[in-house]
């Protein structure tokens, strides 16, 4: 893709260990050098550390929920505690893990590298985003530590604004503050992509990951303010009795849902588009083929981002919304499924006549396609008006969005993390363990969430602390699956940490990948490139012949 370094003669690192200057060493190893850094790579890692903390707390809440649900009776924790647990789980996972996962961790790290830039457009703002994000996160954790909130991550009124006796305002304030971090990240990315591309890197030479980050950033910038205002109004009603949502104060509770989903539906795409972008990098690399339908994939990201703003009403088919509104929202929801389908078809087609390496990142990409397809297809059930009346508010929807957000986004995040791990750390992870973990995760995931489709259709409502005995068998399966899934997540945590010290040193391009990020050393120097790369080619210039030797740890 660039002229500076020819691809083939990268030395095997184990044979030729040499110490390059890299962003770990340049700038120092002190704590202050990290906390005050403006290097996008270090900020990406700061995000990684923080989201792992939030993830662990949220996963712990999930574990307690799953253990509680083994038996129909609510016997492990009280109902109050149970309700707080799912609120912690949802709030932390959505806002403090999923939304920042791919964009703020991987995006921060690789976006400037992919563009051939030295950093993002506003490095200091980038650091500010991280601080805002964690200020919000600490606020949420403070709420959790001092009693927690029990509204669910959706904060529906008038329960949240009037009736709940929990730390709703603190929790909402956490989300509110973190939202500003999101907005700034979005702005930063948009401007970076517009202004910082290397010479010759035209829009249609951009990696698809960049297209997806661009679409995501637009959503972050346009939708997050609505969430902020909505939560602010809810909090004001709670504090001062401002009558916006509570009918006793002259408000309209359903208005909250409109506002909330006007943000949160697009937010669903914040939690999947970047994942799609990652997969669009992995598939061509490990199939050694240029991606099929580059333009179609790129524009489908944009189409999803635009249409995603017009479907919020599909969360409200039974909320007393007008049936004609329901008709329109259902139609648009079906339309938004089409660009997603296009992507899946194009990814599959890319493998045709390729040379396929079943490496860990690629296994995750395959897992993504499988789980995302199931998640997407079950979205069609929910968009189908008559069927949604039955499955709305049940475990069917829980299963659906976990297939998208965990099966899709988390799988893609793991794929991306493995793919760029050598670049980020300069070390290779143990390949066989990596493949094993990917497999365990896939099996555990399906065992956890597939039964939830069935129990949802049977009628088990979500957010139930105790449930009817006929639902038990599926809940037991689900909990069994969750423990396998837990092992699947634990493995990478262990071998990644292990690899930092003991992993084989990574060459600059172990996967023989195209893309500017692979043209600099691993880990990259502080300013990314020794000389600014010049792009002369289309993206993804892979060839299935001759056979390549990828370098594994």
């Amino acid at each position: 893709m660039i002229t500076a370094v020819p691809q083939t003669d990268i030395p095997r690192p184990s044979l030729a260990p040499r110490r390059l200057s890299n962003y770990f060493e340049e700038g120092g190893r002190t704590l202050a050098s990290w906390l005050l850094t403006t290097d996008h790579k270090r900020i990406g890692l700061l995000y990684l550390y923080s989201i792992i903390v939030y993830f662990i707390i949220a996963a712990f809440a999930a574990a307690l929920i799953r253990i509680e649900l083994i038996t129909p009776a609510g016997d492990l924790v009280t109902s109050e505690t149970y309700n707080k647990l799912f609120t912690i789980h949802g709030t932390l996972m959505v806002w403090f893990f999923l939304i920042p996962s791919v964009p703020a961790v991987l995006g921060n790290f690789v976006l400037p590298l992919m563009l051939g830039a030295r950093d993002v457009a506003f490095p200091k703002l980038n650091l500010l985003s991280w601080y805002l994000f964690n200020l919000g996160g600490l606020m949420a954790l403070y709420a959790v530590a001092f009693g927690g909130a029990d509204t669910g991550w959706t904060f529906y009124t008038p329960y949240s604004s009037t009736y709940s006796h929990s730390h709703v305002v603190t929790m909402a304030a956490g989300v509110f503050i973190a939202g500003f971090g999101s907005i700034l990240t979005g702005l930063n990315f948009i401007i970076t992509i517009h202004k910082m591309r290397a010479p010759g890197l035209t829009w249609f030479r951009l990696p698809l990951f960049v297209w997806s980050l661009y679409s995501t950033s637009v959503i972050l910038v346009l939708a997050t303010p609505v969430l902020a205002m909505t939560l602010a109004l809810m909090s004001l009603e709670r504090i001062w009795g401002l009558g916006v949502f509570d009918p006793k104060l002259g408000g309209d509770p359903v208005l909250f849902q409109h506002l909330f989903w006007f943000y949160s539906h697009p937010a669903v795409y914040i939690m999947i588009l970047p994942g799609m972008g990652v997969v669009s990098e992995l598939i061509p690399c490990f199939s050694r083929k240029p991606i099929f339908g580059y333009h179609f994939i790129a524009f489908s990201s944009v189409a999803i981002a635009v249409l995603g703003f017009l479907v919020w009403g599909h969360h409200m088919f039974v909320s007393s919304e007008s049936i004609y509104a329901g008709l329109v929202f259902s139609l648009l929801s079906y339309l938004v499924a089409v660009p997603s389908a296009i992507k899946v078809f194009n990814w599959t087609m890319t493998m045709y006549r390729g040379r396929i390496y079943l490496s860990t990142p690629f296994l995750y990409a395959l897992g993504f396609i499988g789980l995302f397809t199931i998640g997407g297809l079950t979205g069609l059930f929910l968009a189908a008006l008559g069927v949604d009346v039955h499955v709305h508010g049940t475990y069917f929807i829980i299963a659906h969005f976990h297939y998208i957000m965990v099966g899709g986004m988390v799988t893609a995040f793991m794929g991306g993390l493995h793919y760029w791990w050598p670049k980020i750390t300069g070390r290779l992870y143990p390949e066989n363990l990596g493949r094993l973990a990917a497999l365990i995760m896939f099996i555990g995931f399906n065992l956890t969430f597939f039964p939830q489709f069935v129990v949802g259709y049977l009628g088990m409502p979500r957010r139930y602390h105790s449930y009817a005995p006929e639902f038990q068998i599926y809940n037991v399966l689900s909990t069994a699956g969750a423990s396998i899934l837990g092992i699947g997540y634990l493995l990478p945590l262990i071998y990644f940490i292990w690899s930092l010290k003991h992993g084989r040193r990574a060459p600059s391009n172990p996967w023989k990948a195209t893309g500017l990020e692979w043209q600099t050393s691993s880990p990259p120097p502080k300013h990314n490139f020794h000389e600014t790369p010049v792009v002369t080619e289309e993206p993804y210039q892979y060839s299935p012949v001759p056979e390549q030797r990828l370098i594994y740890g």
Partner: protein
Amino acid sequence: MTFPVFPHQASRIAIETDRIYLGLLCLSVAVCLVVFVPMIFFLFKYRSTHPADRTPRRLPQNKIEITWTLIPLFVFMAFYAWAARQYFEIERPPPDARNINVIGKQWMWKIQHPEGNREINELHVPVGRIVKLTMTSQDVIHSFFLPEFRIKQDVVPGRYTAEWFKAENIGTYNIFCSEYCGTSHSKMIGHVIVMSPADYQTWLIRGQPGSTLAQSGGRLFLELGCSGCHIGPSIVRAPPLDGVFGKPVPLTTGDVVLADEAYLRDSILFPAKQIVAGYTNDMPTFAAKVSEEELLELIAYLKSLGTTQ
């Protein structure tokens, strides 16, 4: 150990919803086959160590893209229309329904029958009869979910929402609250008890309600002083309420509104919101004075005016 997959089908609606569900399931399986069979085939045939023909082929890319855009689009539209038809059926109660009131409250369902019977977390209905539920909540949002009937509707404070069903068989079915409403959300459950018409009659009589819902409303109408203005000659000129329900009412703004339950509710709670043409805003609000149950009784009374008197 049993693995139930479908809830019992308690109504025609349930049967049709299951049909659409199965249709979507077939569609899903078809899509999975279309995606995963080639994918697995490619994974096998083009795996790195396997010799295969890998010479790049010029494919008619645009044609391919258009095909796999349009085919899903048309198939999706068919399912959209099918499910939308079902939604219209579910959402619009047929006219000749038996009305029963449901009031949601943290964490119970209160039911009012027109004959004056009241129950909590149990809903007795006659088999084969269309039942329309007029629902509201006195606190937060709940949702009245009848899985065996494949229907649910949010129960929203400050509004009346409706839900209808026609039970095909005698039996007992679940009521779940399916909108999170606080601590004991998962205990906000109950049963629909479908009885033969004869049994239902006996059940109604055995309940020995002192008065019908409309009669209770009539009593309130006197006690709250509504009659002082609305019946006979009075100091304040107020519109007569005979037969007002279901009629178009001209307002001072020039608009004409249909006097449905929501309108009557607003007239009592927020009289200043809509003022009947030819009158002035002289009616006091009863917002803090009547409960949701009493409101529904008053409305039952107002509905009965002009039909029986």
